[in-house]
């Protein structure tokens, strides 16, 4: 693997090896010394043209725990605000000797474009409404641990497959890069994805994604193994995609009433940041079967696994 730009670039063995290694990486979190030497001497530049707390921080922690030098560049306060082009900015950082770029940008396809310009490895940390592959990987990791817990009583057992598991992804699918990456990844892992959204928030071409699409959340919930709620971006409210916040919550929010209708073994995911009271009620966010914080903790482990896979070996190294 040279870059991680899209879940569509991965094959099954790569996905499984990323998820398996993340299990080992997660153990580092409970160690007295949270440090592995694998990426000593590597330089990872996190370059974020959009705001982010958890993605940027977890990439930074992941890099540091693997002993890489990590540097954060945000668009604010960089030469980008002086009008420098994306290409010149990236070539400048590349020339300084960065080994990898973790990039978030508001334009779909930005990460792929950068990968064509630079020498370094590129990891897509969110490009517009296109993709967010490490989010989908950490979602898959968290779900897999959950399925193993349900099946074996412990998350330590052998990884459980996704076959036959019904994953409902609910909310603003139109503006979501998380949903696209998850759909692509589940195409590899074999989970059965159901998309739930008001018709105004469905992306064009969704009928070709090979997923069931509906606007009836209540019909889907009793059979779902995972309910993944997506954030309704408040800036969309003015866009006329739905009448009012309250009406959205009534039709598409995970309310306390809907919580009671879930299977006993079902679990709740949310990529964050959450709008409590809009797409997810506080009761659901903090429920015993909510995996929201597991997702955050998995984020570091999965990103360590990604960085290890891309950077541990010198390019062209022969066995």
């Amino acid at each position, binding site marked *: 693997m040279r870059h991680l730009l899209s879940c569509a670039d991965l094959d099954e063995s790569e996905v499984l*090896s990323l998820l398996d*290694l993340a299990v*080992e990486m997660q*153990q580092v979190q409970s*160690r*007295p*010394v949270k*440090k*592995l*030497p*694998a990426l000593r001497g590597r330089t990872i530049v996190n370059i974020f043209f959009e705001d982010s707390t958890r993605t940027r921080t977890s990439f930074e922690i992941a890099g540091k725990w*693997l002993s890489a030098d990590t540097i954060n560049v945000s668009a604010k306060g960089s030469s980008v605000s002086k009008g420098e082009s994306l290409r010149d900015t990236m070539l400048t950082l590349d020339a300084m000797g960065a080994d990898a770029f973790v990039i978030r940008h508001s334009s779909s396809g930005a990460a792929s474009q950068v990968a064509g310009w630079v020498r370094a490895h590129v990891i897509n940390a969110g490009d517009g409404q296109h993709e967010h592959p490490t989010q989908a990987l950490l979602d898959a990791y968290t779900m897999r641990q959950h399925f193993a817990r349900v099946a074996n009583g412990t998350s330590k057992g052998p990884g459980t497959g996704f076959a036959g598991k019904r994953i409902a992804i609910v909310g603003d699918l139109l503006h979501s890069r998380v949903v696209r990456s998850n759909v692509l990844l589940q195409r590899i892992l074999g989970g059965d994805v159901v998309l739930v959204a008001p018709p105004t928030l469905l992306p064009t071409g969704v009928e070709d994604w090979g997923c069931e699409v509906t606007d009836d959340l209540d019909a889907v919930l009793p059979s779902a193994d995972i309910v993944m709620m997506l954030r309704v971006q408040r800036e969309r409210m003015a866009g006329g995609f739905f009448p009012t916040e309250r009406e959205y919550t009534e039709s598409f929010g995970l309310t306390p009433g809907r919580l009671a209708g879930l299977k006993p073994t079902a679990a709740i995911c949310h990529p964050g940041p959450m709008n409590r009271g809009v797409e997810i009620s506080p009761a659901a966010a903090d429920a015993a079967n909510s995996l929201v914080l597991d997702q955050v903790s998995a984020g570091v482990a999965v990103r360590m696994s990604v960085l*290890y*896979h891309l950077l*541990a*070996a*010198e390019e062209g*190294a*022969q*066995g």
Partner: protein
Amino acid sequence: MARTVVDDREFSRILNRIAHEILETNGGAADLVLLGIPTRGVQLAGRLAGLIEQIEGAPVRLGTLDITMYRDDLRANPVRPVGRTSLPGSIDDAVVVLVDDVLYSGRTIGAAFDALRDLGRPRAVRLAVMADRGSRELPIAADQVGRVVQAADGERVRVEVSELDGRDAITITGTGEDA
């Protein structure tokens, strides 16, 4: 053809001897932690722990220590799969016995020292190996050696364990042959 230098019966005698030697050196099983280095060190450590328990009548702490990320040749090779590290609680002030299949350059054990340093501070670290084929590149020696094996540079010394390979043996495979 692979040459068998130790067969299953000899293999089991050797393990018995090593178990007794570990107990003798340590004056019993108290404070002992056996850590197997993946892959085959894990099975060997498990067998030794079973034998020590039989002899002493009390269980001995057992774990695994993967050293992949501590290797000094990580960069020079394609991405290596990482094995499992699992410790039976704290190793502070314990006597850790590292268990590996073949001792050769000594670099694996050198990396194991670095890995242990990140995990705690044992009172002492000892090394038990099934086969020692010499040609050290670091000043490292084993406390318990199953069998000293003479092999030429291009030859491969393998320790086979029944859990993974269907039989217990130490074999030498010649140059250019598949194992």
